[in-house]
């Protein structure tokens, strides 16, 4: 048994860490303040191969694996949570389903430029009236010859404003629930759709979150991912992988919050000694560090599970549930350690609290993760009882 990273993964970690230190940490507060999309940084991520990390070189990806992706996501999100989610969506929610469910033609046309970072992707599943209950969606894609005609609105779309390519999940047979759903790659340049409301959010303000409006948008049949009716499966398996990315994002946010709190606890003095020498502060820091490590191990377990092509849905749900709630706890404590300074924007502690919060919601709320885990555990422990 070995928990130490090999050379390749260490190199990925160091590269990502250096990039975060030099390029992201200096700008994270500013892009949060301005709500500005970090276009230049995303371009540089592309040059590092970080926008298609687990995509084979054959399809212009970095040819790495999901463990490398998780490691890089942690480091990048430590530098800037907004940049982290932009990267996560392109890797997990766009490249991954096209790689797994697309045909070679689709891979050549869409996956290659997405993995290179020439194009940016978004993933459209949720709607104004359906989130966790994804099968309750209303958006329709009705076949018309060699096209589908798409009508409906998608909500909470990360990268919605900047994306050129959208992986869209829609009903092709509205009379069915799960089985009537299909997945598509929509190229906004060929099949224009509208960008609706741009959300004003609590955190991750450097990434855009928009609604997408499809009004008789024509999508070629050749752009369908997998069979008609297979879309729900495509969506769910995509989210299984996406959760590894979001868990890593949550972990990265917790890391920076913790590191800043630890440093602050050594600098700030009270009653004649650093506050970090007091039991109460030290206990908080010890718990933060322990939970951070626990989350990372859960994430690695899930990522390795995906790399080994085994069943990893339970593990990725555990990683996402634990890491996101851990991140909220850690950021909360980090703010507390800073006292009043934690509450003002001169320090970063309050931003980390805001950035961490969404990780408990998107790509499956904590409640959905618990349902997924409970189902798996019940099946394991009550063999044959159902």
């Amino acid at each position, binding site marked *: *048994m070995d928990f130490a990273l090999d050379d390749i993964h260490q190199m990925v970690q160091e590269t990502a860490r250096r990039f975060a230190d030099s390029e992201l940490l200096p700008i994270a507060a500013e892009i949060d303040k301005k709500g500005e999309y970090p276009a230049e940084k995303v371009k540089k991520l592309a040059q590092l191969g970080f926008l298609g990390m687990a995509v084979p070189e054959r399809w212009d990806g970095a040819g790495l694996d999901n463990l490398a992706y998780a490691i890089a996501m942690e480091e990048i999100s430590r530098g800037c949570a907004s940049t982290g989610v932009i990267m996560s969506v392109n890797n997990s929610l766009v490249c991954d389903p096209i790689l797994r469910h697309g045909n070679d033609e689709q891979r050549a046309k869409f996956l290659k430029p997405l993995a290179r970072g020439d194009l940016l992707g978004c993933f459209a599943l949720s709607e104004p009236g359906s989130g966790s209950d994804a099968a309750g969606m209303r958006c329709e894609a009705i076949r018309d010859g060699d096209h589908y005609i798409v009508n409906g609105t998608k909500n909470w779309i990360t990268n919605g404003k900047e994306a050129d390519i959208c992986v869209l999940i829609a009903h092709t047979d509205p009379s069915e629930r799960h089985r009537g759903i299909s997945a598509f790659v929509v190229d906004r340049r060929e099949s224009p759709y509208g960008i609706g409301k741009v959300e004003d959010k609590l955190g991750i303000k450097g990434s855009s979150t928009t609604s997408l409006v499809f009004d008789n948008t024509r999508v070629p049949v050749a752009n369908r991912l997998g069979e008609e009716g297979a879309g729900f499966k495509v969506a769910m398996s995509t989210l299984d992988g996406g959760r590894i990315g979001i868990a890593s994002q949550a972990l990265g946010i917790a890391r920076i919050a913790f590191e800043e709190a630890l440093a602050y606890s050594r600098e700030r003095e009270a009653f004649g000694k650093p506050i970090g020498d007091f039991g109460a502060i030290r*206990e908080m820091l010890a718990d933060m560090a*322990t939970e951070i490590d626990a989350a990372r191990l859960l994430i690695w377990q899930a990522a390795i599970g995906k790399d080994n092509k085994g069943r990893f849905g339970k593990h990725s749900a555990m990683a996402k549930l*634990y890491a996101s709630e851990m991140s909220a706890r850690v950021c909360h404590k980090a703010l507390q350690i800073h006292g009043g300074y934690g509450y003002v924007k001169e320090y970063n502690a309050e931003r980390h609290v805001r950035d961490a919060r969404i990780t408990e919601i998107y790509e499956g709320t904590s409640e959905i993760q618990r*349902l997924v885990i409970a189902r798996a555990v019940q099946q394991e422990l*009550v063999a044959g009882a159902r």
Partner: protein
Amino acid sequence: MIELQPNDAERAVWEKAAQYADTVLAGRAAAHDAGKFPEESVADLAKLGLLGIKSPVEYGGLGCSMVAYVGAMRAVARRCASTAVTMAVTNMVGDMIALFGNEAQKNTRLRALCGGDYGAGAFALSEPAFGSDAAGLQCKAVRTDDGSAYVLDGSKMWITSGDRAGIALVMARTSDASKAGGITAFLVDPKLPGFGVGRAEKKMGLRGSTTVALHFEGMRVPASDVLGSEGMGFKVAMTALDGGRCGIGAQAVGIAEAALQAAVQASAKRRKADKTAGTDQLSGFRIADMATRLDAAWLLVLRASSMLDAGKRATREAAMAKVYATEAANFVAQKAAEMAGPEQLRDDSIVGRALRDVRVSRIYEGTSEIQRLVIGRELVRAL
């Protein structure tokens, strides 16, 4: 290269322990819980090699790893926590002889320990007035004028198997010149005169394992029974605890796992009978939290163990594993009790027993508070 699976030898140890625990120990656990010392089971463990999992093969051990050990510990604790703690301390004493002992000690004492000749082993560090502050211990060992022996005077407290063990690893003060540096470790033979066993504690859990005070009154211990050298005792104790903490973490995971399984099965049964709206989802949510924390706990235990196997310093990681695993396990046992229904709160039920057995894991081999202190110290040290 990251590898989260045990190797073949380790897996074989895990499976051997699980097989024994599931088929034999499970049937004896209730009797042990009622107060019967697991003498027979400890003898069985010796035959299986499970009293010296890490000890070298040439001295009767399995010559395997910490990873093998924690997997076996988890499997045994799943069925009988009393047997598990007896096994844990015995292995710990053996590990210290293997690590710090001379050839003669390994040939005689370690061989006897692994082979089951001693029954269990005991580890005597705490005293009535010194627990977490171990370096302050007061039990005295004064070297005789001719240098052939030490005379032990003082008391030890909370000694697992202290009245049963054929060998006790005793930490005593040989010098007042230095606090931690004045402590020496002895391999004490309890049959020698001057060794007294005090009151047996009546405990909340782990009732099959004994916990006693030890009293030394002018007890002569041969100088050849010093483990390592004079003044090295604190190092021996702390080394033992780094490994011990992984073991206790694994024990806690095992106990909690049994509780989780019992609770899930009980709630599945109830679900068939009772369709009250919402209860289904609520118990599902609890199950998810319990299983997630146990998974994280087990990974932390494995990480610290694998680092120790690789010869790395793992003080921080072992402390993290211990505090996280034992607190997660207590959480799981509590939630299991809430979910499982009244019959699982009987004293002799699996969940009821787990609830009682698991509590001490947050206290012995370093309280949660001490683990956090250790982690905090290591965090600052790494800055």
